[in-house]
Structure formats: C-alpha cells, structure tokens
C-alpha cells in the first residue's frame, strides 16, 4: 500500500532568530527525497520537528492526509536515524536485530564481514561499523517512512554504494528522507531534492539550482 507524508506550515524560532518559516516537503512510498542546506540551515531541526522531538506552535504533518503528532510514538509510521550514534553500547548485535525484527543473515548478505559480530557487543565494533548497523536497522525495519540524518558520513565508499543499493531496494516498501553533505550521493540516489535556504525549502531540478541557491560552487 502506498502512503504519503506531507510537511508544511512549520515555523521554528530560537529567540528572535527565525530558523524555519516556509517549509514544504512531500514524500511517498517508493520515493527517496534529499534535503540539502548549509550548516545551520535547519535540516536536522526540520527532521526533529517531523519526528516530534522539537515542539513548535506551528506545524502540519500529515500521513495520507491525516494529521499526525509525536511521530516517534509510532515506529510503524516513522523511524529516525539521528546524526550521532544512538544504539546503547552494551547491547549485543543479535539483540539489536531482534528488537528491530530484522534478519541478520540478510544483513550479512550485504555486509559479509559482519558475520563474526552476531554475538558481539555494539561497543566492540568500530565507529564506521557502528554506523552501518545503525543505518541498516532504521532503513530495513518495518515502517512507512524513515528519515536518515547524515547516513553516509563515517562510512567508507564501498559501503556507501552498498547502502545506496539497500535504499533502492527498501524504497519499494517505504518513503525515505535523507540529508547529508556528501551531495553527490544525494543527487545520485534521490528522486527529488529540496534545498533549505533562509528558512525556506526549494524543490530543485538539477545541479544548477544548487549553484543558484548557494549550496555548491560553480567549479
């Protein structure tokens, strides 16, 4: 079944500074959308607002046309990969896969080098390996939409390609929202790209729009 997630009417202010004011995002099952923007533009804040982690007076988040509040209370609708490590360090890999109802052998088909880690604690893995487990748990678990904040950072290029292929496979069952500064991967994988500038979202068509909006240089 196909689902639509719409986000608009968001106003976020920190004191007198207005960070987000005219935001519109739309995602649907089968689509990957990317959010780009300069540091401090409000990408992570936007994701946190959609997830219900940051409270604002003005926001409208709708799933299939119906308003949803505090999406984090319902992982079947939305899961969120924050930009920092979020899995408790003392948990074993097998416990993590059990909690998220995931198949470890499917995971090792993508990442065979993880086979030896099944009974190992999360803290025993390297930073990059931790990130791969985190990305996979959010990306492959059962949900209608998932938001990934900087999924490609800390991950080596070979695994970035694998993650991109998992995304392409998983988007058949869910909508995916990504933000990352490795914009070439975003351009490569996303169906639509929004850029946040001056608190507003702009739907871009190609790389020239990213130049116009001041996100990348001409050269």
């Amino acid at each position, binding site marked *: 079944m196909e689902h639509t997630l719409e986000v608009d009417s968001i106003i976020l202010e920190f004191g007198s500074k207005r960070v987000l004011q005219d935001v519109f995002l739309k995602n649907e099952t089968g689509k990957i959308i990317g959010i780009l923007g300069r540091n401090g533009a409000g990408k992570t804040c936007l994701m946190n607002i959609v997830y219900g982690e940051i409270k604002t007076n003005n926001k409208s988040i709708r799933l299939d046309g119906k308003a949803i509040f505090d999406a984090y*209370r319902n992982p079947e609708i939305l899961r969120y990969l924050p930009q920092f490590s979020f899995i408790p360090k003392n948990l074993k890999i097998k416990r993590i896969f059990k909690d998220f109802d995931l198949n470890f052998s499917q995971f090792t088909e993508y990442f065979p080098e993880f086979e030896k880690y099944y009974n190992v604690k999360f803290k025993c893995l390297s930073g990059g390996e931790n990130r791969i487990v985190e990305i996979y748990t959010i990306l492959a678990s059962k949900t209608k939409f998932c938001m990934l904040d900087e999924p490609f950072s800390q991950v080596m290029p070979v695994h970035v390609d694998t993650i991109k292929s998992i995304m392409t496979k998983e988007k058949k069952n869910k909508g995916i929202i990504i933000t990352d500064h490795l914009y070439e991967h975003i351009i490569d994988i996303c169906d639509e790209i929004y850029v946040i500038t001056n608190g507003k979202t702009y739907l871009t068509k190609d790389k020239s729009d990213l130049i116009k909006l001041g996100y990348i240089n001409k050269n």
Partner: protein
Amino acid sequence: MYQSGKNGIYIIQALLWFKIFTLGILVLFTNSYKRNEFYYYKNLGVTKLTLWLPILIFDFLFFLITLITIASYNYGTHP
C-alpha cells in the same frame, strides 16, 4: 522511649525526602548523559516515561520496604 520513637520518625522523614531528591538527580543526570540512546527506544516506540516509570516505582518501593523492615526490626528488638 517516646523521645527515641519521635527521633526515628524524623529520621525516616529525612530519609524519604533524601531518596526522592536522589531519584530526581538520577533522572536529570541520566536524561542528559544517555540523551542520544533514548532515540533507540523511541525508534522502538518506547517513550521515556515508559522506561522511567517501572524503574522509579521499583527503586522507591525497594527502598520503602527495606526501610520499614529495618525500622520494625529495630522497634521490636528495643527494650
């Protein structure tokens, strides 16, 4: 005898308030120190309140039962 019982009630009162205070400190410290890890449980649909409530109830009840047991034991053995 009466005086020692009165002091005991004061001590129990002070201990109860101290326990409540330390539980408050524990919640504040853990919420700050483990802030990132709460996302793991949120992604599983478990809220902070769901995590905290059983822990706090168990901890406080364990303290209360221990306190009552010790107090009643001491009261029973005193002349």
